[in-house]
């Protein structure tokens, strides 16, 4: 046992070096911040023909996100090397995790909106793979799919918003958009663009009503949750809203939607946290709540709110990530995350308990922690803004819940008499202690890195609110009214903590909402998809050839009638001209007329015979006659190439069908076919096409292309046969595509035919 364990831990440390990659990024960022003033520019052309430039613009806000992504990323890698020491596929996880990091770094660094969209979607895709990492577990698969569908739908809305904004502003550069700012409001399309943009951000950042994917995504391995669902991925929507805030924060729409949705999400997330028993899902609920608070803060127009937002963003990442890791350690040691079964763990897991205490202090916003500073700033920002009383009470409730959640995570599961026999649970290895401990320490005493922290927060806030002057975050401790509000919050939070077990009953009425809420809506949509698919398959793909033909002809008829109506006015004129041109009345007939008439007679005879005969082989021949007749017609109307092709197609078809048909037994009874209805349909579609052609002939014809091809064929492409030159030279790319489709059709059909052959073999 011990040998195997030692071996496994060796295996785990093999991946420790991965942490060096984000660490190097973090180091480079710190070095850059100390030596070069922000913002940094750079970039190169990517798709010059579309004006897409890979332009990088890093200001305070980007730098803050980069610090979170690389710094926490390095620690998460260390943590994961311990957490996944026994996971044989962990190499894959590290690879996807790094890909996700790159996508996040790209998303918060680039200036071009379309490039940002590419990285945005990459984060969705990689997070799908990470959430569904344990893909043998159905719950993980469903959660991954849910997260993907929700965030990708939002991504589509975002793309539409980007295109609209690009059209309105005449530029896809974020900096250009911000520079134009309020001037954009003059465009009537702006509200639509903003709604779409916010839909994209809300899905990504788990705002109501798109929040439901986040708690379910807790099936992901804990390092993934600690990284994606507390510090990075879910903050990407927050990032984009914060980034565009200076352009739009004067708009009533922007402010009201952000404040309204943010406040409601904050409350709803708190409710979700309060009624959970799974520690990880409790944290997920409180994360939704925190994201709502961030959205609310971005929506507030005063500059203080921007400072509060960036401070809270930092503080939240610094306490939520370690708390997730703490839950991971508990899960690792005990195999459960249910708070009903966890108690008195401090004796067996003293280090994890210490980390939980430190992070919990910051989360609860107790003095001397960075959480306290953030909460302080939030309170000031909200007092400055003129908010509804309801939002004030909501904030109190949300903050109290945060305190209660912190107490549950830090006190409840560790305190009390030890319920677990000590030999059964063990403290986590150092790789799973050090990363959360470091984060929690930074969170508890942010003066730990004073040279980095203060300016970083200030420049980040200034990126959101340019009018904000120099700030000293640490100096904003104001004891007074703020502290009393904090005391009240603490008291209510403690009360909530004490009655936690009874809250489930109290909050039971909210379960009623679930039946009609967003989750139910998602489930309904998901289940409707196969239902609609099977319905339309039953109706359209019934397997009866006659029905397919009728459906095709009726669709064709509908098109014909539509086109005929569009050219209706030309018809009379067309008829007259047709009669004159073809000299059916008056004048002499041209020399080829007899050939035309013969060809037409051939086709008519073929058609008439096809209706009359019932034998399959005879039908093949008579319908072939129609084809040969039309080929002859082409031949005498100056299209020898078309005629040749028609002859070849018709011959090949007849030969192939004659070879294949006799081997497939007697034909199915034609008696089932509605003979009269078919005849009527055939005549009607024939007449429809005739009228359509007549209408087309009446339209003026543009000979530019035909003349050009005729003139250019020999000098430019060395060929007399214009048709062939067009196929193989002028439009060679089209032909290449068509020929590829032809070949691929066989690639798809061969397995099907093979299955048919095998089925018949087994039946025989």
């Amino acid at each position, binding site marked *: 046992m011990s040998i195997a364990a030692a071996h496994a831990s060796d295996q785990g440390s093999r991946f420790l070096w991965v942490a060096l990659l984000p660490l190097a990024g973090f180091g480079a960022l710190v070095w850059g911040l100390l030596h070069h003033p922000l913002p940094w520019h750079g970039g190169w052309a990517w798709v010059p023909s579309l004006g897409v430039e890979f332009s990088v613009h890093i200001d305070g806000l980007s730098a803050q996100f980069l610090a979170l992504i690389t710094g926490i990323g390095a620690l998460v890698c260390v943590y994961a090397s311990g957490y996944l020491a026994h996971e044989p596929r962990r190499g894959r996880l590290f690879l996807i995790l790094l890909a996700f990091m790159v996508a996040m770094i790209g998303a918060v660094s680039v200036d071009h909106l379309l490039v940002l969209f590419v990285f945005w979607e990459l984060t969705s895709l990689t997070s799908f793979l990470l959430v569904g990492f344990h893909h043998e577990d159905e719950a993980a698969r469903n959660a991954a799919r849910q997260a993907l569908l929700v965030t990708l739908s939002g991504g589509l809305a975002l793309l539409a918003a980007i295109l609209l904004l690009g059209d309105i502003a005449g530029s896809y550069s974020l900096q250009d958009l911000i520079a134009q700012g309020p001037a954009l409001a003059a465009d009537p399309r702006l509200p639509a663009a903003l709604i779409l943009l916010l839909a994209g951000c809300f899905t990504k950042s788990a705002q109501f009503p798109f929040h439901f994917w986040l708690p379910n995504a807790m099936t992901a391995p804990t390092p993934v949750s600690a990284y994606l669902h507390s510090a990075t991925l879910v903050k990407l929507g927050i990032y984009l809203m914060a980034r565009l805030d200076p352009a739009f924060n004067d708009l009533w729409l922007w402010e009201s939607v952000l404040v309204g949705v943010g406040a409601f999400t904050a409350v709803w997330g708190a409710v979700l946290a309060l009624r959970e028993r799974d520690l990880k899902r409790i944290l997920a609920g409180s994360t939704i709540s925190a994201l709502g608070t961030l959205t609310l803060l971005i929506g507030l127009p005063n500059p203080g709110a921007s400072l509060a937002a960036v401070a809270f963003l930092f503080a939240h990442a610094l306490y939520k990530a370690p708390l997730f890791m703490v839950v991971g350690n508990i899960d690792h040691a005990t195999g459960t995350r249910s708070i009903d079964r966890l108690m008195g763990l401090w004796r067996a897991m003293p280090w994890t308990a210490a980390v939980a205490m430190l992070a919990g202090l910051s989360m609860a916003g107790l003095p001397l922690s960075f959480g306290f500073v953030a909460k302080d700033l939030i309170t000031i920002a909200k007092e400055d803004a003129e908010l509804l009383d309801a939002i004030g009470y909501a904030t109190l409730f949300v903050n109290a819940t945060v305190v209660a959640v912190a107490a549950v995570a830090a006190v409840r599961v560790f305190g009390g008499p030890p319920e677990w026999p000590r030999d059964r649970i063990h403290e986590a290895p150092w790789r799973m202690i050090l990363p959360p401990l470091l984060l929690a320490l930074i969170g508890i005493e942010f003066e730990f890195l004073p040279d980095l922290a203060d300016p970083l927060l200030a420049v980040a806030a200034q990126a959101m609110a340019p009018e904000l002057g120099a700030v000293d975050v640490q100096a904003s401790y104001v004891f007074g009214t703020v502290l009393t509000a904090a005391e009240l919050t603490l008291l209510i939070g403690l009360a909530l903590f004490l009655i936690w077990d009874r809250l489930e009953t109290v909050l039971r009425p909210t379960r009623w909402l679930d039946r009609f809420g967003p989750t139910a809506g998602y489930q309904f949509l998901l289940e409707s998809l196969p239902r609609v698919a099977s319905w339309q398959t039953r109706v359209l793909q019934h397997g009866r050839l006659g029905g397919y033909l009728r459906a095709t002809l009726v669709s064709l008829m509908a098109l014909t009638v539509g086109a005929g109506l569009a050219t209706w006015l030309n018809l009379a004129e067309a008829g007259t001209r047709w009669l004159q041109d073809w000299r059916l009345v008056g004048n002499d007939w041209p020399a080829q007329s007899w050939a035309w008439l013969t060809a037409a007679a051939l086709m008519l005879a073929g058609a008439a015979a096809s209706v009359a005969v019932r034998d399959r082989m005879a039908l093949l021949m008579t319908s072939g006659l129609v084809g040969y007749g039309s080929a002859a017609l082409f031949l005498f109307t100056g299209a020898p190439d078309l005629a040749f092709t028609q002859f070849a197609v018709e011959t090949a078809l007849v030969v192939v069908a004659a070879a*294949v048909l006799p*081997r497939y037994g007697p034909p199915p009874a034609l008696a089932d076919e509605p003979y009269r209805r078919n005849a009527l349909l055939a005549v009607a579609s024939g007449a429809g096409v005739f009228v359509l052609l007549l209408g087309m002939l009446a339209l003026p014809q543009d000979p530019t292309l035909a003349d050009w091809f005729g003139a250019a064929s020999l000098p430019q492409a060395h060929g007399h*046969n214009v*048709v062939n030159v067009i196929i*193989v030279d002028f439009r060679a790319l089209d032909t290449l595509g068509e*020929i590829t489709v032809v070949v691929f059709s066989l690639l798809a059909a061969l397995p099907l*035919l093979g299955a048919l052959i095998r089925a*018949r073999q087994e039946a025989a």
Partner: protein
Amino acid sequence: MTGRALLLERTTRPLYGILLAAAVWILLRGHNAPGGGFIGGLVAVAGTAAYAMVFGPVAAQRRLPFGPMPLALLGAALTLVSGLPALALGRPYLTHLWWNLPLGFAELPLSTVLLFDTGIFLAVWGTLAGYVLALLRGGEMDRGGTP
């Protein structure tokens, strides 16, 4: 068709050769007269179908160079490749190049167009022959024969 059709068997073998020769001729003349890779391919398919009708799909497949799927893929690959030389010369993809090969008594006009058209020919032949042979094999079972 039950039993053997001697007359058909005697005529089909030379007919197959004639049809293939005609198909290649149609392919080659296509640039200046009616014809080309597509029509040539169709004629070749007619030959394959006729052969398979008389001697069975297995025998017909044996006469098909490389077999249907590789033949079709080879054709698609030829059309793809024929556009590459232009890239090497810095021209847009699929810009066709011509080269008159002096033979002493005459000049043989070679071009990437011919490569392209040959690709179409092989792709059409391989694909449609693949369909025909698979359908025939499926049909064989119906008659209790062996595929």
